């Protein structure tokens, strides 16, 4: 049975929902609209898969790079620049 009330969304709106469902809970209508669009749009399916991958990539980056290795390369040079408070006589 086709849900008459189902709001059809285009790619632009679907893309927004795809992103936002990672940050908030979508309403039932929003979920249905997105699901319907993803069923018929290969480009958005790919975009969605790639956004999932982006999340996995970010988590792996956090684990492997951001919080473990020395992120700041230039920072270690020029550490001591005599930041004693100036005591001019």
């Amino acid at each position, binding site marked *: 049975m086709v849900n008459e009330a189902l709001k059809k969304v285009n790619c632009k709106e679907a893309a927004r929902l795809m992103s936002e469902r990672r*940050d908030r809970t979508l309403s039932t209508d929003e979920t249905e609209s997105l699901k319907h669009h993803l069923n018929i749009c290969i480009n958005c399916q*790919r975009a969605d898969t790639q956004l999932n991958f*982006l999340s996995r990539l970010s988590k792996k980056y956090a684990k492997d790079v951001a919080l473990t290795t020395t992120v700041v390369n230039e920072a270690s040079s020029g550490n001591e620049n005599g930041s004693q408070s100036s005591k001019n006589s």
Partner: protein
Amino acid sequence: MSTSASNKTTARRTQLFDEIESHRGYLIRYATAKLRDSAQAEEVVQEALLAALSGANSFSGQSTLRTWLTGILKFKIVDFQRACVSERARTVSATAEEDSADPEWFDKLFDETGHWKEQFSDWQTPDSALEQKQFFETFERCMDKLPGPARRVFFQREVMGTETDEICKDEAISSSNCWVILHRARVSLRECIDRNWFQGKFS
């Protein structure tokens, strides 16, 4: 106060200063992760260390020194972010534009009926990319191209896994604004990674 007691105090202070300094590297990594900007991280850590040194007497020794320093650093980071926010609020036009209409680059992705203009390619073996150092470098370069707020918000949300509510508070923006920023950041990163990694692998 006797001379020996004062010498002892001085020695203790020097030792504490050295110990505090030894945590600088860790603190810079922590701040860089939060701010996603090494120069800003340096600056904030410097401020935090100065604050720690001048308040060294208030270190009770009940928590570890690193925990105590990280606590000070957290306050400094929040201060710094607040300052950035009010700085941005002063440059009203830029902020207003970011809030309302979609930026031009974003609009250009869709045709007048709201469909993607471009056909996306299927990313081949994305998981093997996750094993390559160069791929993370591409990811970093793509993140660095994002405008400041988008870079911070994305980093906090996806890399650090912070809840949006907390990010909104730190950035002093509404939830819907936060979602919009994240949406554009993700779309932009997807495109950047596609162009600089997955496309390049076949052309």
